């Protein structure tokens, strides 16, 4: 073994470093200034969705709470009227709470939802100063309305939104 052999090995290694520095894309992300996109099926913090017309998809059926293995969801329902309509049909969620400290992000709530109202989104930045703050209410979970005219509750034409669950289509179609 020659005297310079270690230096050769060293320069080989440094060369590799230099090559990756010059020619490879950087792996490090400058979080929180910079955020890496999540995978399409990533399960982050929940969002309560709206229909295109701004009405809430959630009908307060509490099936998400029933499916939840961590008992993190609490739902209470009330009755819609055409004067004060939150969601299509008779029933809407007047209380909707998720305890984010309890949630295990399994996505069972999504699976159980008959109206695809609850969706696990891509937000993973959940931190709280107080345990109480970990309970997210309906106002925090609902996605923003597309326009100001679509706020809920709102007055709607009578007799239009009579069905809670979107009409089932003929399976043979």
């Amino acid at each position, binding site marked *: 073994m020659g005297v310079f052999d270690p230096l050769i090995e060293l320069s080989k290694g440094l060369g590799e470093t230099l090559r990756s520095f010059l020619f490879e894309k950087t792996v490090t992300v400058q979080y929180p200034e910079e955020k890496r996109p999540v995978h399409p099926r990533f399960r982050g913090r929940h969002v309560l969705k709206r229909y295109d017309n701004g009405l809430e998809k959630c009908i*307060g059926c*509490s099936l998400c709470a029933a499916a939840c293995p961590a008992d993190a969801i609490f739902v209470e329902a009330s*009755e819609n009227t055409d004067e004060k309509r939150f969601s299509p049909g*008779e029933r809407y969620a007047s*209380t909707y709470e998720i305890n984010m400290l309890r949630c295990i992000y399994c996505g069972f709530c999504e699976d159980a939802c008959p109206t695809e109202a609850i969706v696990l989104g891509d937000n993973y930045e959940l931190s709280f100063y107080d345990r109480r703050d970990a309970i997210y209410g309906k106002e925090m979970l609902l996605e923003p309305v597309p326009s100001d005219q679509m706020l809920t509750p709102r007055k709607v034409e009578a007799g239009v939104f009579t069905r*809670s669950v979107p009409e089932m*289509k*003929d399976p043979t179609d």
Partner: protein
Amino acid sequence: MTKQVSLTINGTQVTVPEGTLVVDAAKMAGIDIPVFCHHPKLEPVGMCRMCLVEIGRPMLDRTTGQVVMENGQPKIQFMPKLETACTNRVSEGMVVMTLSDKAKDGQQGTVEFLLTSHPLDCPVCDKGGECPLQNLTMGFGPGKSRFIYDEKLHLEKQVPLGELIWLDRERCIQCARCIRFQDEIAGEAVLGFDERGRNTQIVSLSDPGFDSVFSGNTTDICPVGALTTADFRFGARPWELKAQASICTQCPVGCNTTLNTRREAKSGGDIVVKRVMPRQNEEVNEIWLCDKGRFAYHYAESKKRLTKPLVRKDEKLARASWDAAVKLAAENFSANKKDFVVLASGRLANEDLFNLKSLADTAGGKAILYSDMAGGELTRLVGVGAGTNIGTMGAGDVILVVASDLYEEAPIWWLRVKQAADRGATLIVANPRATKLDRFAKYTIRYAYGDEIKTIHDFEKKSKISDEFAKAKNAIVFFGSDGLGVSGTGALASACANLLKDTEHVGRPNNGLIGVWQRANDQGAFEIGFEPEEDLAKALKGKSVYIVGADPVGDDPNLAKALNGAKFVAVQDILETETTEIADVVFPAQAFTEREGTFVSGERRVQRFYAAVPAQGDSKPDFAITSMVAKQMGVILEGSSPSVVFDILSHSIDAFNELTYEKLAELHGQWPIVGRGDLYYGGTTYENTQGLGVQLMPVAQVEGTVKLSKVRKEAALRPKEKELLAVPVNKLYDLGVTIASAELLEQRIGDVYVSMHSATAKKLDVEVGSLVKLSFDGVNGEAVVKIDDTISTGVVLVPRSMGIAIHEPTLAKVK
């Protein structure tokens, strides 16, 4: 004993009484045949076709009439088509197959058909989770549908049948259980079918809509979510509710109930009662509950609840510590030992009443029951015998109802008495005016107010009615307070007791006297030794009074005057009342939903209720508060465990015969089978898992004989030519504190009214619907005039607890 019949169901040998329906026989053997329209309490109709099974019967030789044998076995002949198990009665040697391919095919077809016009909106349906259609679709359905979805029937979804019950026309499967319940069991045919074919719908035939006090039961037996209650509408999903056994506190029937509880956001995250459901007890309420019991529970959560002890300081009530409040009360009671009076009502549990009575006895005070009715010492002597079950009374038995409108005073007794009459029992209704029970009575005796005792004495004379009463196999007498006060009911009870004794209808099951008391535990108060007072105002004046569970100031201006002249007033209650306003000390008590205890029903059944929700504020159970006060007065009473108080009670009062909480929690098998696992069969009524209670034996049953004092001859108050007699009557939905908090029932409470004969109205020159001023005995009030021509003339009926204080018949003036 009825003849037994043996048959084979799914290869299992089953022996049942003759006349049993195949579906019930299968249920007895633990085999489930799916049903929608069949209900074990209703007559079979075979409307839904869900119970299709294969039925075979032994083949008979036409010439000899003998069973044809084949290989040593009877040859079974099956019908070519499926039969309904709910309309076929069992016969000897019958073979039933419920799981054969053919039977399954029939059942699957029925489910598939039913679902063609069912909306499948289970997520928003109040029945979802405890729904027979859901369960049977999973258990017996085909799993998929060949139906074209575009042809789904869309109908109205929010149809209020009345203000209490909502109909969803889409969900209805036209099983007619609700219609049949109202027809057959409640005897009030206020529902019916309208139109035909796919347009068939349930409609209310009455005005106001669904005018029945049993309407809530239809939501229990509805096999789908078509009928739901306005009270529980979207209240919670059934699986989120916790269940705790309780006893209804509204009347002396003592219906077994289940309180469903859950956390509620609008109550600040507290656990509250979300709904009241009936709990099966075939000897008390079967599987039913009246609307008052079901919907009037809200008073325990009222905003007016007392949560802290209060003490009067500088003319105002101010918050105080328990120690200070108890000490103040005890010092005043001790200082006025001679004038110490305990005034308690039958809203309290036995444990509370026992401690109060013990305190009054040791301190040398008087224990008064806050009630317009007397006669409790007689129900102790000749009350109905242990083992009484009105549900078993029928042909050959007699039930006499005197001076009581059972429909208004104790609806479930009304229902049970009506059904006994349907089964053939002779019902005699003696009342000074027409009541809803008259329709089912074989004999109706109409007497003038004041003639109650005479009417009972007439039973001693020979007549068709008295003959039938005397010769009856069993006889029960219900006596009430229609037109009577303390002295009147006392005399009436005594007359009834003597009649029962003379005709030898005492000391046996299904025989004896029942008081239709005003409150749930009046019977318990009588057992413990409380007595009502004829002149309560006099008994309170100038005394040192301990008022528990009563609102005399709010009820009667005369009592208010008397209490204002009292030396010292301590009030113990769950709600702020007008009486707490004048009190020197106020103790906050716990509601029946928050603590344990026992009640004695009018049929003398001791029953337990359990704590379902946490106590509000600093409130304590009544018996514990009494024990604290007693301790300060130097009397030691148990104050921590209700079961220990009950043990002491049952060892010191003979009738309780050393009962314990454990004995009260005992169960035995009941028919029909109901409960969470058998929703499709009995409805959503809860099964009884926490105790059926124990019926006390009256003295006549224990000793075989009984001594009764002679009837006091009361000089009956009768109106003279120009006089007007005001008499008290009872109303189901009144303005009492236990009902007024239920917003839903407001409409049923209605206006303050008085009713009189049209001739009386003419004489007084008042018209129907006009407002009149009524005054008597220091009481003034305004009321709307109603006409009832079945009342005797010269009499005006004033409902109790409707704003005009009336306790007993009294001469009045009307303007």
